């Protein structure tokens, strides 16, 4: 266990050191975070300049969904995506063999092999946005709601992570898949809207097939006190289930890579 902890710390330290190499980046990343947040909020601004309420969500509550979106995206772009790019490169160059030869679970090594430490700005921005939304609402969230909101945030991150592991597993069968990271990002983009805004088939897809609703809408609802216990449990259960499934698929991918089945 300590082995894994120490590995994580070393990987974090290396990425931060590499990131600090260019000091101009510090400023650039800060500016980028603000610019990106503005861009994310624009459609919201346009939407609510023409309507007061969309599918039961008013402007401040929709802002909270976007806040969760920004937070989960910060984790995606800060840890998951860079590590995935690293993994694909290793598979392509053959250096992935070395990962298999280490006495540490391969999934652990590749999950957090690279970081973009500046994404912490995005995370901070998300928190600021949520706080601002609550000032518009007029009162802070109830303590229980806050707790549930945090728990579901973790569940959302786990769901997103599991989707990434599934993509990573796919890249064993089809070697040149660096575009997959953009696909994941593109799909994840749908998470910025409350899932109720979508109708019919779309809503079904985004709730059960590619559960972006799990990552943003439900946690936002929890924070706003609008989520019933049954749904909350279902979300947590679903995330854990997805985690297990992704682990199994990953193991199958490794077995295929080492031609265990042939």
């Amino acid at each position: 266990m300590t082995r894994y902890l120490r590995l994580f710390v070393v990987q974090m330290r290396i990425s931060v050191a590499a990131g600090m190499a260019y000091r101009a980046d510090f400023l650039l990343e800060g500016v980028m975070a603000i610019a990106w947040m503005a861009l994310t909020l624009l459609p919201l601004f346009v939407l609510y300049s023409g309507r007061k309420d969309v599918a039961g969500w008013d402007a401040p509550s929709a802002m909270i969904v976007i806040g969760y979106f920004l937070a989960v995206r910060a984790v995606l772009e800060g840890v998951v995506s860079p590590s995935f790019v690293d993994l694909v490169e290793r598979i392509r160059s053959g250096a992935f063999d070395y990962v298999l030869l280490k006495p540490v679970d391969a999934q652990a090594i590749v999950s957090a092999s690279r970081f973009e430490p500046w994404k912490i700005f995005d995370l901070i921005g998300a928190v600021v946005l949520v706080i601002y939304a609550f000032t518009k609402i007029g009162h802070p969230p109830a303590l229980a709601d806050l707790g549930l909101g945090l728990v579901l945030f973790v569940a959302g991150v786990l769901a997103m992570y599991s989707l990434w592991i599934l993509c990573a597993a796919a890249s064993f069968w089809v070697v040149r898949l660096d575009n997959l990271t953009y696909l994941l990002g593109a799909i994840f983009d749908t998470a910025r809207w409350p899932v109720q805004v979508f109708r019919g088939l779309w809503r079904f897809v985004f709730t059960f097939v590619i559960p972006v609703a799990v990552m943003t809408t439900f946690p936002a609802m929890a924070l706003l006190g609008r989520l019933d216990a049954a749904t909350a449990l279902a979300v947590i259960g679903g995330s854990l289930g997805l985690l297990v499934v992704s682990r199994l698929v990953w193991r199958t991918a490794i077995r295929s890579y080492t031609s265990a089945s042939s």
Partner: protein
Amino acid sequence: MSATRTLRALPTLLRVGVAETVAYRAEFLVWILTTTLPLVMLGLWTSVAQDGEFKGYSSAAFVAYYLANLIVRNLTGSWVAWQISEEIRLGAMSMRLLRPLHPYVAFAASHLAAVPFRSVVVLPVAVVLLVSSGASALTTEPLQLALIVPSLVLAWIITFNVMFMIGSLGFYVTKTMALLNLYFGLFSLLSGYLLPIPLLPVQIRWFAEWMPFRYMLSAPIELMTVKLDAAAAAWILVAQSGWAIATLVLALVVWNRGVKRFEAVGG
């Protein structure tokens, strides 16, 4: 490198480009699928407009806009900036510079080679668009219809030039990813990719109307979905042509300067 030799090399370049594209079936599919933002927006805005027009756009109008968006984006998108920055990073650029073929031509050829395949994928979308929207949201003016293809070609050229220029910045800056993200943000906003330009807040709309982004994406869409008089339609093509030339010059200047710097530093 002579122009005639370049022309003679072109068929082989295109053929190899096609083989490359086909070699990796799944990646190819994924690339097609990554332009999903228009579909997401489509889902959102059609839901919103179902209760009534949103600032002049009906549900059908949104469908037409975003499907046209998808078609144009798929046909004109370029990834040459990624290619260039990767080649610089991995050291393959030095090799490429030794070959007697200008990289602009080489990259353009490999991109053009992918267009037939992207057209094949785009075709069903186009059919859905025609069937679902019909004449109500699409133009029927013959002049406009005739100008769609030239407009797409010019849009492709402008997009390629701009991406080529950004890629060339990789000779100066190591973190081209940050630059690309910034560019994509501006592009989404100002080209009509994220939202139709008329729906943008007033201050931004003004910007969008004269920056090149509009002519990379929105221009062909406008020709497909908005009723324009002959002068307006012609003006779009004229503006696109102007930007095509301007961006070509800019791209080649940045490239040349960049290569000189690259070679001075030792490649």
